[in-house]
């Protein structure tokens, strides 16, 4: 029963990801896509957590943290790209 619910939750997350994928593809603006990708990352975090429960393993908990970090870095990078076209500035003046 618990496992069924967990699997159901996974299905929900997949549905959410699918919806977000739609947003990634359709846009219309770049920030829309960036938000959607960020949210996909965040949803994957949840999905990994659930899989960890289902598989009853602690092996993926680092992945959760790392994915959090990466989604964050990614979003920063994207927003900088959208805003300035550059990700790493040459100097502080820009």
């Amino acid at each position, binding site marked *: 029963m618990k496992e069924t619910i967990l699997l159901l939750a996974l299905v929900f997350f997949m*549905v959410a990801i699918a919806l977000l994928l739609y947003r990634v*593809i359709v*846009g219309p603006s770049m920030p829309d896509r960036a938000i959607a990708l960020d949210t996909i990352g965040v949803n994957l975090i949840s999905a*990994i957590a659930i899989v960890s429960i289902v598989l009853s393993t602690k092996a993926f908990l680092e992945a959760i943290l790392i994915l959090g970090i990466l989604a964050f870095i990614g979003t920063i990078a994207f927003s900088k790209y959208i805003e300035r076209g550059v990700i790493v500035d040459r100097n502080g003046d820009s």
Partner: protein
Amino acid sequence: MTIEIAIILIPFIMAALIPLFNRRLQKSFIGWVVLVIPVSLFLILTTYIPRIAKGETFSHTYWWIPSFNINFTTYLDGLSLIFSLLITGVGSLVILYSIFYLSIKESLHHFYCYLLLFMGAMLGVVFSDNLMVLYAFWELTSVSSFLLIAFWHHRKASRAGARKSMTITVSGGVAMLVGFLMLYAMSGTLSIREIIGNVDEISEQTLFIPALVLVLLGAFTKSAQFPFHIWLPDAMEAPTPVSAYLHSATMVKAGIYLVARFTPVFGGEVVWFWAVTGVGLLTLFWGAFNAVRQSDLKAILAFSTVSQLGLIMSLLGLGSVAVHLGYSTSSVIYTQATFAALFHLINHSTFKGALFMMVGIVDHEIGTRDIRRLGGLMSILPFTFTIALIGCFSMAGLPPFNGFLSKEMFFAATVSITNLDIFSIASIGILVPVIAWIASVFTFIYCAIIVSKTFLGKIKPDILEKNPHEAPVGMLISPFILIGLVIAIFFFPNTLGAYILKPAMSSVYPTFPATAEMTPHIYAWHGFKPELFMTIGVILVGLLLYRYMKHWIKIYRLFPQKWTLNAIYERVITSSENISESITNRYMNGNLMHYFIYIYVSFVVIVAGTFLTLEAFSWTPSLDAPVENYELLLVFIMIFASCALIFAKSRITAVLLNGVLGYAIAFFFVIFRAPDLALTQLVVESVTTALYLICFKYLAELKPEKTSKRVKLSNGIISILVGSTVTLIGLAVINYEKFESISVYFEDSYKLAGGKNIVNTILGDFRAFDTMLEVVVLLIAGLGIYTLIKLKAAKKGDADT
């Protein structure tokens, strides 16, 4: 070190020394130094004559590549002796002649170096018993000939002639090499003598005829037989001494040598008979026929050489009948053709050598070789005229010169062959004497042309202006020695026969008893035989035709310029270059898409082709692990995302979709219990995406693909085929469970390597070497990117090569 090997090596050593001492040697002196070599070699070789006449042979082996049976085995017998005497004898005369012929301003060290190189190579050819060594020297003669033809390489014609001769003779050489290899495959030996010893076993094998044909190709190209003769006239761009030496007396006779040498092997074959005889006769005719229309003296001599080589070749063909018939008193008669061939070989070298030197003198003194601009030189160049007269008479087959003797024997041989009832000679054999006779008529005509157009008639005024005079004595010595031989041989032919020709005959017919009368007595007069009438006919018809040449010369115009062999050769070369170029440029067009199409199509055709042909496909889905719903959903998400990637119109969308794929794969790594992978994939995917974004600053936005629908469709089909190939093979492979994986071993990682993370233990210990190298890969990439960005093309004067 025996003398034979020394004979081969000395010219090479000298050739190597010349460039070294070039600066120390006075230019006027160099020729004389070089002259010492052939003269002394010739003298040494003459000491062999008596012993070889007694039937002795000399053989020595020096190891070269014994692992593959390739060794220097020198073999000196009657046949080699004839040729080696010619090589050194004519060589001496030619070098002597060159000393006076070539100006001191020429790069003489090159000239003599090449000449010595050639001499050594040629001696190597005739002394080698080992097929591979023979081949080596054979090609070296082509190379040195190339260098000599291109001696005046600033002239375009020299370069063209050199290229043609090299291409044709080397091609023939390659064919010959294949023939040799086939002989080796059949006989298991590379020694010519051993092959001759095992002929019976070899001749039954399927490769025998191919080997025969291939060896003949080598001989025909080298000896300028029809239709390969076209290189020889162009080779006349070489300095005249070279023409005299290589392209009439020696190198072109290497093919003759080869045919003679291999007569004991292949001689019994009908293919051999007809090929050698037929091609010889055709060449004989074609050369003589074409010589008549030439206006350059050297060209006339070139075609004449072609023709004479054909004559010798056809004689060898006729003589091979004796091998087929085997020894009997009645068959011995047919060996006389071979005898005549060897005899004419020597005769030809004498008179043709003299004639070339004569042309050299004319060219040297008058400044032209064009018979249309020459005439009446008899009074200015009386000695030269003598040379020309005697040489031409001999060539035309008139007494009292050696050419008469061999020409008569030739006619005799052609006539006697018609009596045979093998090889379908009975039906077409009559053609042999007919063609021989017609060719001789033309020979007579061009001989007449040489003499009369150059020396008789009135002197052209523009020649007189130059105030020409007779050549220096030095230049006359060599041709006069040769002319002397022309006459001497006529009077003492049997000395030559007994000491030189007879031992050579037993080389060609090793199975025939030496006592047999294979060395017929040569008579200048032997009664009213058909050959005499043929000769008389030649002279009468020849004179007549020469007299009325204006009337029939038009027949040459029947051969359109477009279809001459030369034109065809040029056209084949040019068109193969052009076709190659257009084909190559069509597919090697620099378009990466096309390259990928070729690659993928090959991939599909070869891999899927094999896979399906071998019926390797199998699929048992029941063995699969179960699929959860969310996994199915994820698969759909990935398929959707990847398809969307194709249609993405903006690069950011595309990169994001790629990121989605990467993240989804990381999630699959989670599902499939691969934590390290998941971690790495996540980080790498993000970093890669960041890299894309960073690089996008310098790249353009995606534009819609401008490819046509058709291209898109075909690309799509190719892609689907590639994808399905991978899938189908994969389905077959996942059920392939014949072996246990070696990774079971790694499950003891804690005990073995002290790590509990198996994957990491593999990376850090079991397969640490991979990891070490992959770190190197990373470093290279990092440094490489740095280099790529920092090292930009210099603006101008970039000296890097």
